[in-house]
């Protein structure tokens, strides 16, 4: 079958998709977007978390056919997504992303080109930078899913308590870090966001 949907603001068309294929498989193997990871393909680990019309979902549990006509944001589009949200937020009207907002969102070519060796110069979402700064990345396999989930949390709740963070990230397994630095990263991103908003 053929599936038409929008990924990170770009219209995409996938041909010859089997009925059994997951959104995760289509993203990784057909769209060339391997950022969403495949650690269990059972909805247990959260490594494949993407946003579908703004809502975080496990891409491995979504059948490709279900995304027909819908909007998907993956970790590859996170920086751009966060930037446009921030711009939209200048009015102070920051809340969850409505379906309409999500659909209006467009990927724009970034003027900075990432260094191919170490990615230097890449434009990052605040949560991405915070993960690096806090040492929340070790092997990094859990990172894309955690970033998408954490970004959505901060969008909903600019000042999450530790209990809020734990609850929001409880569907994402990490085997390397012991989570402490992941908590640090989310707190750091929230604090930076707070400082920015209060203009300090």
């Amino acid at each position, binding site marked *: 079958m053929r599936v038409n949907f929008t990924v990170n603001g770009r219209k995409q068309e996938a041909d010859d998709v089997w009925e059994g294929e997951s959104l995760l498989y289509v993203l990784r193997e057909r769209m060339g977007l391997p950022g969403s990871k495949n650690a*269990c393909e059972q909805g247990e680990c959260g490594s494949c978390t993407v946003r579908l019309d703004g809502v975080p979902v496990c891409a491995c549990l979504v059948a490709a056919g279900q995304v027909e006509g819908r909007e998907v944001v993956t970790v590859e589009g996170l920086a751009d997504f966060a930037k446009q949200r921030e711009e939209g937020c200048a009015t102070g009207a920051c809340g969850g992303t409505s379906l309409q907002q999500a659909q209006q969102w467009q990927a724009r070519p970034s003027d900075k080109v990432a260094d191919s060796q*170490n*990615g230097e110069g890449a434009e990052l979402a605040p949560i991405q930078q915070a993960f690096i700064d806090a040492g929340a990345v070790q*092997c990094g396999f859990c990172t894309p899913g955690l970033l998408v989930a954490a970004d959505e949390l901060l969008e909903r709740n600019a000042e999450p308590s530790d209990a809020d963070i734990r609850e929001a990230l409880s569907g994402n397994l990490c085997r390397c870090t012991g*989570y402490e630095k992941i908590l640090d990263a989310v707190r750091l991103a929230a604090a930076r966001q707070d400082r920015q908003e209060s203009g300090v």
Partner: protein
Amino acid sequence: MGVTGTPTSIKQGSKTKGGIGESTLRPDGTLKVTGEFAYSSDMWHEDMLWGYTLRSTTAHAEIRSIDTAEALAMPGVYAVLTYDDLPTEVKNYGLEIQDTPVLAHGKVRHHGEPVAIVAADHPETARRAAAKIKVDYAELPVITDEASATAPDALLIHEGRDDHHIGHVPHPNIVHRQPIVRGDADEAAKRADVIVSGEYVFGMQDQAFLGPESGMAVPGEDGGVDLYVATQWLHSDLKQIAPVLGLPEEKVRMTLSGVGGAFGGREDISMQIHACLLALRTGKPVKIVYNRFESFFGHVHRHPAKLWYEHGATKDGKLTHMKCRIVLDGGAYASASPAVVGNASSLSAGPYVIDSVDIEAIALYTNNPPCGAMRGFGAVQACFAYEAQMDKLAAKLDMDPVEFRRLNAMEQGTLLPTGQPCDSPAPVAELLRRVKAMPLPPEQQWLAAGEQADVRALPGGLSNTTHGEGVVRGIGYAVGIKNVGFSEGFDDYSTARVRMEVINGEPVATVHTAMAEVGQGGVTVHAQIARTELGVTQVTINPADTQVGSAGSTSASRQTYVTGGAVKNTCENVREKVLEIGRAKFGSYHPAWATAELLLEGGKVVTDGGEVLADLVDVLEGESVDLELEWRHRPTEAFDLRTGQGNGHVQYSFAAHRAVVEVDTELGLVKVIELACAQDVGKALNPLSVVGQIQGGTTQGLGVAVMEEIIVDPKTAKVRNPSFTDYLIPTILDTPTIPVDVLELADEHAPYGLRGIGEAPTLSSTPAVLAAIRNATGLELNRTPVRPEHLTGT
């Protein structure tokens, strides 16, 4: 949280920004947060095929026949291979004993053993084709424990075994046996005022790294193959792969692709040979990615163990003697079992002074899943048992458990059971003091608040099983000792290639090693070492591959020590060459070139007094220095096979934990409130990564304390829970805050005084949690993981 203590001063290179001791950030961080970092499962090639493995549905059976015709006839299927298709006479591989078949032949010895492999144009086609292969099994009785393995009429798991351990084991179904005898334990026991004994059971833990086994083999035009794979040791894989393919090693070119965690689970071969075989047969690139179900069958696990211990102590609290017997279940193939036996036995007394010991450790061959390396490697199981014994002794003597441990704590100079003196700092008592001194989390906050409890903080969490009634708190302590690096006389070397040149008007160092970066941060530290030794800020780390000499394994907490040592050593030699060039070019301008001790710092050649002699750019203009050197730590020796005596280990690391738990005694649910850790790291090359490693290791120890276990049916030896639905690893809700106190007491034998860190925190975390649960409930609890039924007696 942070790094404290008084570092012993160790001579080191220059102070250049981003050098050792700083929390520099990972060079691969940006790629990892943007999704661009290429993990082994992300490889893609035009025209590639997908490989899939058919695995045995039974644990022990003769294979009467395999019929692949129907699978081969399916459209989209390019190859179906069985044992008969292997190209050479070499049909087995193995880390130490080559007893593992590439594909089963004659019989299968464990549930999930690879029987056939398929290549097809879509992963689903490959899976469906595999399902069409007909294997005719004639079931055999399964061997699952010591009694069934060593019975006089027991079937032999490996008939005709002829490896070098066979002469020393009492039964061919025992992989290896290591006794250790020092002093006279029976005689010393007479001095004991109290004697405690216990039998302990340690469940089968899985590494459960998140990035599944995966990689891609691309056939080369020269008849060779290029393999991109996630592994812990490229050169060890190469040695096992090339003979099976019938290719010389230089025709199997291996490159490390992104590794999503390892923890010992990638020491053995998984899909490497299968992908190469399919690529060479079809002439097309072949990608294999295990799903989580396969991953549980695709790698070895931590040895489950039965441990019997006896300890004695005088009434003033001094240990008199220790006897122990440790039975490790190695499963169907040897993997790293012999070395695990060596570790379990030699570290079985823990970090304590005990002059008289009588120790035996064995590993069995059974039809259970193969077990091998996992973080903590043999020392973990022993620590669980000896720490329970310490608490029992303290209780019997009516002493504080921490004071009792401190009274018996080993220190620098103490002899281990093997007779080897510990010749570097052993701050066991200090670590216990520190972890005890850390502030406790506030008393049951939900109680004190007098308000409604936040159920998220209680055992059972959001499932609303309690509002605080029936919840009791407990505190427990533990400490452990782990060896660093490969032991028992192993030639544990590493290789580093370092080049220095001017690129775009800047001095740049390039470091090339075959070290597997598995997430531990070796790449960060190598750049820091190069900056420190060569005084440049720009360091490029080349991808790890087999174009450079072996780096050894990323395991046994050894990489920063050994490959870090190799990078340091090569840099020092490069520096000498750079200085020679400088002397030749500029020596006549300043006498200090000949007389002073020179450093490279901040892109310049400086004297140790800080006087600048030249810019590196000017020295290196038109020249480059390029060296590849091997580096070794001090040699070790094998343990005597009868007495266990010998200087078998190169270095030790120590960590202590304090666990605070709350237990719902009605439902048997446990919530770990806090797990504090104090660890000595010798020298923290990168404090941020050090703390991250300690927290990660602590969490894996927590996992095996309360939830993680691969459950094998004792009647059929089949695995019951090969999925993340049924094999539970800690989530962020199960993991408490982990405050870390890092001590830096330099080991003068190690580069920069550093000490391996990755494993020690996994040791003491488990027994600390168990001790805390015992403290809360008063139950004996001699098994890990603890399950609700153990706490409620149901």
